[in-house]
């Protein structure tokens, strides 16, 4: 009898231990206030702005162990950081952020190509990428929304025309325009460019109504919802935070059931990703079952994706029942990303404090898009925390 009891108890204990360690490690959400998140945002903005070059180029990356600045650069990431600065200006209203965004913008304006009736930018000589131009247009639309200034309206129209001429009748977006052939590169699509273009066109459609941009953006949103993953050969459905942004900015009355279904599916993916991230400590046995805390850009994209969909939850536009969970995930992310950010005190003892302070590192390396995506996610979390405090 005692032996059988011991056997059964052993099975229970072993099952509980395996479940706890492998399947459901604790989801750690450090408590955080709106003030702390605002400070985290300011520190991240500091990293971006303080390391911004006179030519409008951002610091790309920094390897802490090697004490080496990355010589690489990437046009989509440049446009993405600029867009994120305009998001931050819209949320916080600090003119210094707007000035920094405009310096990043000037880098792109210096590299604009015009052709037929459209405009687009790229690094000199490179084929024109949809992703970088989608984010340029999204940034310009956010800037217009935040400032009300029409000064870039003509450029917005030009870049929107570039995106639309890259669009196929199905809504698919060809990723590049070939300078030599003077035509879109056929049959090349990107995992992110499609959503970036869709979001930019939706934002522009709202800012410049009556010009057809919203309809063009929705065509691509519907393509993403209905056929993109299968048509472009993805094994699993893409966790596309840019598509989430697009859905978050579609006028609510235009959210039909297919678009809401896409929004719910994306919210589910981001929620799972953020729950998983909260389980990561990067220490002891957890390291073996969950690996290191995720790359900041990866965590941040999930956070900004769910923050974009928060609009639909607040407005009860098909996601009202998910609001509590969405807000819980956003605030949880704010807690652990605040903890993971390099503080001023931590940076002070490092070889080059200015390259580390305010950054998030993944295994000793930080990159501009890490700061960008987490910053955008934290802006959403700040909105939730300020709403709770009010």
């Amino acid at each position, binding site marked *: 009898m005692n032996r059988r009891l011991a056997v059964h108890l052993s099975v229970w204990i072993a*099952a*509980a231990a395996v479940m706890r360690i492998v399947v*459901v490690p*604790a989801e750690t959400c450090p408590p955080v206030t709106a003030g702390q998140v605002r400070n985290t945002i300011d520190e991240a903005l500091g990293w971006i702005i303080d390391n911004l070059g006179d030519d409008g180029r951002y610091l790309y990356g920094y390897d802490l162990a090697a004490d080496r600045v990355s010589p690489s650069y990437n046009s989509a990431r440049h446009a993405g950081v600029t867009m994120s600065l305009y998001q931050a200006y819209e949320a916080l209203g600090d003119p210094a952020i707007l000035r920094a965004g405009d310096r990043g913008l000037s880098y792109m304006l210096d590299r604009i190509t015009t052709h037929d009736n459209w405009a687009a930018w790229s690094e000199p000589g490179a084929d024109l990428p949809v992703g970088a131009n989608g984010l340029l247009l999204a940034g310009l639309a956010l800037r217009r929304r935040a400032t009300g200034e029409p000064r870039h309206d003509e450029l917005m129209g030009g870049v929107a025309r570039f995106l639309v001429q890259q669009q196929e009748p199905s809504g698919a977006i060809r990723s590049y325009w070939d300078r030599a052939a003077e035509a879109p590169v056929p049959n090349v699509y990107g995992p992110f460019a499609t959503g970036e273009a869709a979001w930019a066109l939706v934002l522009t459609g709202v800012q410049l109504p009556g010009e057809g941009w919203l309809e063009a953006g929705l065509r691509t949103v519907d393509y993403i919802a209905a056929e993109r993953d299968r048509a472009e050969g993805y094994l699993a459905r893409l966790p596309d935070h840019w598509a989430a942004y697009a859905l978050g900015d579609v006028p609510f009355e235009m959210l039909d059931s297919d678009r809401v279904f896409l929004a719910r*599916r994306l919210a*589910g993916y981001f*929620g*799972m990703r953020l*729950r998983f991230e909260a*389980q990561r400590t990067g220490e002891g046995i957890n390291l073996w079952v969950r690996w290191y805390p995720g790359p900041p850009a990866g965590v941040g994209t999930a956070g900004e994706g769910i923050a974009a969909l928060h609009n639909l939850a607040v407005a009860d536009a098909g996601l009202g029942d998910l609001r509590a969970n969405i807000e819980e995930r956003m605030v949880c992310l704010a807690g652990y990303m605040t903890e993971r950010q390099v503080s001023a005190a931590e940076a002070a003892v490092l070889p080059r404090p200015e390259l580390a302070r305010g950054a998030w590192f993944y295994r000793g390396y930080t990159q501009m898009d890490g700061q960008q995506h987490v910053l955008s996610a934290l802006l959403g979390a700040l909105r939730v925390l300020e709403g709770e405090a009010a």
Partner: protein
Amino acid sequence: MNGILLVVAYLGGFNPARARLSVPETDGLRARPGVLAAGSLLAFGAVAALAGWSGPILEALETSPETFRLAAGIMAGLTVALFIVWPRPATEPELAGWKAALWPVAFPRLVTPVIATLALSTGASDGVPGSLIGAAVGLVTVNLVGLVPRRELPDRVLLWAGRMTAVALMITAVFLIVDGIRDV
């Protein structure tokens, strides 16, 4: 989880046909009805306690109900494998008299790891009433199957019925895992 799946989950977790193979019996090869009923009540109480306190328990474990659904699904999947590979439970020594309701009926036969994780998961996600209805249906079925004398219901039938019930539990396992992944 809808009501039907809740019932399927608890039926699959209790697996009445398999449980029937290892509960105290009368000389007439029927399950001892009083002992089986009392053991079922104890199991029902355990489900009620776990489902009722699922919120504080999961909070103490720092686990969201959505993530715990994954754990319940994986536990259900492992249990399905156990049911299929090992369809006849081991014969347990019995406590004398009514104490047999506690051992081996309530524990280890009815209150198992899969029932415990299901109670925590469904209590937190689907509510206590739904969990209790699901558990009640499963336990009533356990008692009904116990009324049938083993000589009229050959072991082979019970073994296969146990396996078929395991397949039903697999459906629940898949649902829980997919739901745990897709939920926010």
